[in-house]
């Protein structure tokens, strides 16, 4: 394998959130408007959860 991508934990999680939010938005709702809203909601919750989890880990560490 030639390509070896090195992503930080945050970058990897953000990309993961982006892709699964798109698929969830499209597959879990019926109209275009609902799809966009639900996709944005999933993405926001994932990124928000990422920050919360990060701060919890920081607090546990210190």
């Amino acid at each position, binding site marked *: 394998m030639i390509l070896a991508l090195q992503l930080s934990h945050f970058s990897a999680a953000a990309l993961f959130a982006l892709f699964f939010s798109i698929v969830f938005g*499209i597959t879990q709702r019926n109209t275009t408007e609902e799809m966009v809203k639900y996709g944005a909601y999933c993405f926001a919750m994932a990124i928000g959860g990422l920050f919360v989890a990060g701060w919890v880990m920081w607090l546990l560490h210190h």
Partner: protein
Amino acid sequence: MAKTETTTPDAQPTAAAVPLTPIATIAPLIGWLIPGAGHLIQKRWIRGLLLMASIVCMFAIGVAMQGKVYKSNTGDLLDILGFVGDLGSGAVYFLARIMDWGGTAITAANADYGTKFIVVAGLLNVMAAVDAYHIAIGKKQ
């Protein structure tokens, strides 16, 4: 005296049977084999392209992160589950196996993330294929 109609619990309406049309069979199969194609053949162009881009990119990023592409015959239960997840990607998985892409052993955190990307790409593709089926049977627009 007029006869009154009585209802019993057995008389409740049942769900109408879904006719198995050719498109209802082909759409999920094509959608599984080629991510997003189940939507594309039903002229849901934007949805199909977004699904294709998301799932293929997710799989490709997983491979580029040296994620493990599971094989079928390892015998380990977790490996079998990983294989089932990977298999959801359809042709992309077979291409990865043919080209021998991905890492063989997970030696770094980055490769572990990559492995999850590959498995989840497959699972998301299954969701997309089911969605294509729902469009084909008219359950969804």
